[in-house]
C-alpha cells in the first residue's frame, strides 16, 4: 500500500489517468441528466420525482465521501503518510458540498411531498450532523498554529464522527421517519421500477466519478502547493 501511496507515483499515475477520468465523468453526467428527464413521472409523486436523481446520489456521495475521509484520516494517524493527509484534507470540502446539496434538494422535494421544507426526523437530522462534521473537520484543520496538531485533531474528529454514517443509513429502520425505508441498497434487491432505477444509478455513477476526478485534481494541486512552499522556504533560507 505504501508503494502505491508514494506522492511521486501518484502524480505520475494521476497525470495519465486524469484526461480519461474527466472524459468519462462528463459522458456519465450528460447521460444521467438526459435519462433523468426521459424517465417517466412517478405514479404518486408525478414529475417531482426527478428531484430524486439529484438528491439520492448527493446523499450517497455525502456518506461515501465521509467514509473516505475517515479511512484516509485513519491511515494518516497510523502511518503518518502525507498522501493520506492530503486525501483527507481534500475530501472534506467535496463531501461538504455534496451534503449541502443533499439537504437543499431534499428540502425542495420535501415541501411538495410532505408539506414541509424541514422536519427534525432521524434521517434529516443525522445528515445535518454530517454536514456540521465536515465543517468542524475543516475548521479544526486551520484552528491551530501548528498544522500537525490541527491535522491530528481533525483526523480524530473524522474518526469519531464516522459513527454517524451507519446512523444515517439505518435511521429509517431504527426510528419512524418521514423517509421511506431503503429501496435500492437493501437485501432482496431494489424495489424501484427499472425505468426510474437506471437513471438513478447512472446519475450515482456520474456523481461518484465527479467526486473522484475532483479529488484527484485537488490532491495534485495540494502536492504542487506543498512543493512550492518547500521551494519558497529554500529560497528564503538561501537569501537569509
Amino acid at each position: 500500500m505504501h508503494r502505491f501511496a508514494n506522492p511521486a507515483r501518484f502524480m505520475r499515475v494521476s497525470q495519465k489517468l486524469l484526461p480519461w477520468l474527466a472524459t468519462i465523468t462528463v459522458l456519465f453526467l450528460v447521460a444521467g441528466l438526459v435519462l433523468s428527464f426521459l424517465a417517466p413521472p412517478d405514479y404518486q409523486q408525478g414529475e417531482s420525482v426527478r428531484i430524486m436523481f439529484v438528491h439520492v446520489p448527493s446523499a450517497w456521495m455525502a456518506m461515501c465521501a465521509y467514509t473516505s475521509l475517515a479511512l484516509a484520516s485513519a491511515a494518516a494517524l497510523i502511518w503518518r503518510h502525507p498522501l493520506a493527509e492530503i486525501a483527507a484534507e481534500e475530501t472534506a470540502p467535496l463531501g461538504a458540498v455534496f451534503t449541502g446539496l443533499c439537504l437543499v434538494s431534499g428540502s425542495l422535494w420535501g415541501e411538495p411531498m410532505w408539506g414541509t421544507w424541514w422536519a427534525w426526523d432521524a434521517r434529516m437530522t443525522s445528515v445535518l450532523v454530517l454536514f456540521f462534521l465536515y465543517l468542524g473537520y475543516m475548521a479544526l484543520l486551520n484552528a491551530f498554529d501548528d498544522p500537525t496538531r490541527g491535522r491530528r485533531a481533525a483526523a480524530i474528529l473524522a474518526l469519531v464522527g464516522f459513527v454517524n454514517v451507519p446512523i444515517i443509513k439505518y435511521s429509517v429502520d431504527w426510528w419512524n421517519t418521514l423517509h421511506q425505508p431503503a429501496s435500492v441498497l437493501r437485501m432482496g434487491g431494489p424495489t424501484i421500477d427499472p425505468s426510474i432505477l437506471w437513471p438513478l444509478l447512472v446519475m450515482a455513477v456520474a456523481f461518484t466519478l465527479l467526486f473522484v476526478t475532483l479529488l484527484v485534481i485537488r490532491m495534485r494541486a495540494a502536492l504542487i502547493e506543498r512543493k512550492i512552499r518547500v521551494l519558497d522556504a529554500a529560497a528564503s533560507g538561501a537569501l537569509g
Partner: protein
Amino acid sequence: MSFSTWVQMGGYAIFVWPAYGIAAAALGLLAGGTIRRYRMAQRRLAEMTATRRGEDA
C-alpha cells in the same frame, strides 16, 4: 408533450428546476474552483522552476 408543458413539470417546476439549478451551480463552482486552483499552482511552480534555472545558469 409540448415544451411549455415539459417546463411546467406537472406543476412542480418551482421545486424541480431550482433543485437542478442549485446542483449545477454548486458542482460547477466546485469544479471551476478546483481547476483554477490547480492551474494557478502549476503556473506558480513553472515560474519558480524557471527562476531557479535562470539563477543556476
